[in-house]
């Protein structure tokens, strides 16, 4: 990544109200990690599009209604690539049979090369993982099926 591109990317993120982000490109193996002043420090990556995902967060719950018959569903709040773990060699956030609490990170959706941690908006037990690791997901697509505990 060129210096100019990098600078522009940072300016854009700043404008978007991003607190922290990580950028890796396979092209030249470069990796960029930035945290903006005033952002809450944390031991793990932030959800950089939180500001955009936030108003959408309510959607899965509402949209899940039709699927309510056979359990709750966690939907993708953004479009991107689905990952079950924070990195290729890390453990999956959740597996079938795991209990999940509202607010718990269940997967990553990579969008614009940013790793967005997706939090569950319901409590329950994971009964099915509806998509393969590394596959593209659309906005509103079903990711996990859950049953009430």
């Amino acid at each position, binding site marked *: 990544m060129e210096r100019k591109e990098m600078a522009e990317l940072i300016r854009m993120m700043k404008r*978007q109200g991003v607190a922290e982000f990580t950028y890796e490109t396979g092209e030249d193996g470069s990796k960029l990690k930035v945290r903006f002043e005033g952002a809450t420090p944390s031991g793990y990556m932030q959800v950089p599009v939180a500001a955009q995902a936030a108003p959408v967060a309510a*959607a899965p719950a509402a949209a899940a209604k039709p699927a309510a018959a056979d359990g709750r569903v966690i939907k993708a709040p*953004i*479009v991107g690539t689905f990952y079950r773990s924070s990195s290729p060699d890390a453990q999956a956030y959740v597996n079938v049979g795991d209990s999940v609490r509202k607010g718990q990170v269940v997967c990553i959706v*990579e*969008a*614009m090369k940013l790793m967005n941690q997706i939090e569950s908006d319901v409590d329950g037990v994971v009964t099915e993982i509806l998509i393969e690791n590394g596959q593209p997901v659309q*906005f*509103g697509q079903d990711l996990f099926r859950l049953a009430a505990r």
Partner: protein
Amino acid sequence: MFRKILIANRGEIAMRVIRACRELGIRTVAVYSEADRQATHVRFADESVCIGPAQARQSYLSLPAVISAADITRVDAVHPGYGFLAENATFAEAVNAHGMTFIGPSPEHLRQFGDKLSAKAAARAAGLPLLAGSHGAVEVLEEAVEVARASGYPLMLKAAAGGGGKGMRVVEDEDTLRKVFAITSAEAKAAFGSGEVFLERFLRAPRHIEVQFAGDRYGAAVHIGERDCSMQRRHQKIIEEAPAPNLDEGLRDRIRAAAARLVASTGYVTVGTCEFLVQGDEFFFLEVNPRIQVEHPVTEMVTGIDLVQLQIRLAAGERMPFTQSEVKLDGHSIEVRVNAEDPWKFTPSPGRIVGYHAPGGPGVRVDSAVHEGAFVQPYYDSLVAKLIVHAPDREAAIRKLLGAMDEYVVEGIRTSLPLQKLLLSDPAFRDVKFHTRYIDEWLKNRPG
């Protein structure tokens, strides 16, 4: 040439791009909001990706959503259409940064022409006539008064960051200028984030004439004829035509040449439009639209040039496929925008189309994304279709258009067609006695 293109838009322009891509052998990816799941552009693209909820801000205007959709579908270029992200330099940069091509000018050109003052500077540098005025931001009242004395009244006081008719005020004399200067600047700051204002000569009855142009990466810069888009309601074009009727041929040539000069001097690549105001035998640079325009079909009809295909070819690095002298105009073309709105109150009229019959036959073109049973969404632009005709001359084109409008049946929503039917039969339109404020005055004086 590109293998696959993502179309970051919806409605008729998304369909237009799909058609152009198909003919170029390029696969297409449609993006859509949850509200547009059943939309026509989704049905006819090769692939599609849902990118967010109905609100445009979170879907069609969401830079991360659109870029991510492009990433996961592995496209090699993005076509922005018009509106939404089409003139967003940051978006163009992000597209490029992700290794894809933005089908439009460079981010630098988007910035240059996105700002009124830098656009004017570029026009002045290319020798284009500008309206007398401050030619830049006026900081304080006394400076404004001085500029005004030099330019003469009436003047227009404009927000540098404004557009689409917003942030503008006509000033008839110095007293008024003294009264409104500070207010206008404060309003501009509140509305557009910048309090910069400038002054320019105000034309009472100008025509809006714009020149379609194109440039390639190797220095070619051509104009592709002009359009007359003076038939505007509150600065929104509703009837457009090509070529501009009743225009002195010398003036026409000068206007066309001016646009081509601007392309050459700025090194602009792909297609765009240079807008001018024309009054008497004078013309003045207004702005550049660095994208494909809603009214591009009238130019296509009279030149036989597919502007969207041309735009894609030039973005892909191809050379201009024709020379200036090969651009030939034939006949006359008129477009009406079919807006889903009350034709008299101009309130939006979204809803389900329960009856639909589009006109057809020779010289009739319909660019739309609707059909019987389609739902016109309340979230987006009210443009549902464009009706374009082509005939040997303007009189024949008007007759053809009136007939086609009579055949155009849209039931379930209201459309702007009844207003446009009246305007097309109006003697002022037929005799080319109109200007950019003609419709607003006509509406004001309309009985009932």
